[in-house]
């Protein structure tokens, strides 16, 4: 499992500053071994040895499963890179992908998580979303895809903070925290170097990254984050059945799912995360976040009543005579 190379994704709306952030990150020695895939070559040159271009086709596999929407071009680009690496033609230890500003990043995750040929050689690294301090609020208002980008992120960079009034930066940061309480947030100006750990630390950080702060109850008109909790360990089959059913029916409106689950017969916590209909392979963690051995899943969703989801979780995953699944605000 450790041999799988991490794939980091830089997403964000048009003009948010993705290429600038990537260029600054790639200047760090910790990221010297990254192969980079970009959607388009912008005005800001990326001076990097392993820069490759990907084009834009999205493919729905004939199996018909919606989570099998893969980016055919990205798959081909990744396979070509891995082939050259295997032949000793190039060396790299991670891959960074910059998505186009108008793209929902989910097909990128699906390509890594669901493609039979790639998922044994690659794993998801960090998903970093860049939001422009000047235009970010208006973009979130006007473009659904920018909401999806921010909700999918592990880390959100608010860029161009030196160009926007401090109160606008604070308001945008508060809105992003409410929209995606599981993401770390960094306000970045043009001078301060971004920490390289923002890419390299994904999956290697403290277990607290799986434990969100209490989600905001009502983050305005954006999607809302809410918590599913259970006191007793869950039956894995019941949980898998329910979550598969929920995502099949409502995957378009469930922008993000992230948390830790206690499973009957499994000693430690199991981390679960997904974006829309794509769920990554479950991951065993060393220890419970904050020593609290309970199931806690943060769901970021639109148009879905959180109380109905909690009721469904209890009905499908909880069992008669036990209090396996308890709702929590």
């Amino acid at each position, binding site marked *: *499992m450790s041999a799988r190379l991490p794939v980091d994704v830089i997403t964000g709306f048009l003009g948010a500053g993705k290429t600038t952030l990537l260029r600054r990150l790639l200047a760090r020695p910790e990221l010297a071994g990254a192969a980079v895939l970009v959607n388009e070559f912008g005005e800001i040159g990326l001076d990097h040895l392993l820069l490759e271009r990907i084009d834009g086709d999205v493919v729905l596999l004939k*199996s*018909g*499963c*919606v*989570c099998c929407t893969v980016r055919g071009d990205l798959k081909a680009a990744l396979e070509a890179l891995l082939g050259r690496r295997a032949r000793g033609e190039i060396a790299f230890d991670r891959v960074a992908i910059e998505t186009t500003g108008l793209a929902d990043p989910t097909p990128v995750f699906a390509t890594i*998580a669901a493609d*039979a040929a790639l*998922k*044994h050689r690659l794993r998801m690294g960090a998903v970093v979303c860049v939001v422009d301090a000047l235009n970010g609020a208006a973009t979130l208002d006007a473009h659904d895809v920018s909401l999806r980008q921010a909700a999918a992120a592990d880390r959100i960079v608010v860029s161009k903070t030196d160009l926007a009034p401090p109160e606008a930066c604070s308001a945008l940061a508060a809105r992003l925290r409410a929209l995606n309480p599981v993401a770390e947030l960094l306000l970045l100006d043009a001078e301060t170097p971004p920490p390289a750990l923002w890419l390299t630390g994904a999956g290697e950080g403290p277990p607290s990254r799986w434990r969100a702060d209490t989600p905001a109850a009502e983050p305005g008109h954006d999607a809302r984050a809410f918590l599913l909790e259970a006191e007793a360990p869950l*039956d*894995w*089959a*019941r*949980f*898998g*059945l*329910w*979550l*598969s*059913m*929920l995502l*099949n*029916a*409502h995957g378009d409106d469930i922008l993000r799912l992230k948390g830790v689950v206690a*499973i*009957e*017969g*499994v000693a430690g916590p*199991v981390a679960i995360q997904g974006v829309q209909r794509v*769920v*990554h*392979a*479950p991951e*065993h963690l060393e220890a419970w976040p904050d020593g609290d051995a309970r199931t806690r899943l943060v769901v970021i969703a639109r148009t*879905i*009543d959180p109380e*109905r*989801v909690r*009721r*469904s979780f209890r*009905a*499908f995953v*909880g*069992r*008669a005579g036990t209090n396996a699944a308890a709702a929590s605000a």
Partner: protein
Amino acid sequence: MCGLCGSFAHGHWSDGVASNAQTPTAERARRAAVANAALAPFGLTLKSWGGRYVLSSRTGKAAVVEGFGDLWPAAEKLGGRSCDPLDATVLARLELGA
């Protein structure tokens, strides 16, 4: 290797099993039983069949599915209706049977 990590070797994230699972055949039969409680409101049943499952409707239609990953799209196609775990009627029925 813990069985949960078996999901790397199979097609869907939910395919792995916990370490208290019995034989693969027994685990598939147990999963089918778990699924049948959820499928009942839709008039569908699931049976373990070889290394896979057979999903059947009351009218005799059937489909082979690999696991929970492709179960629900197949159930909707076979049953001719959406399988929504948030549907109030479905929830009420499950809660009554609990």
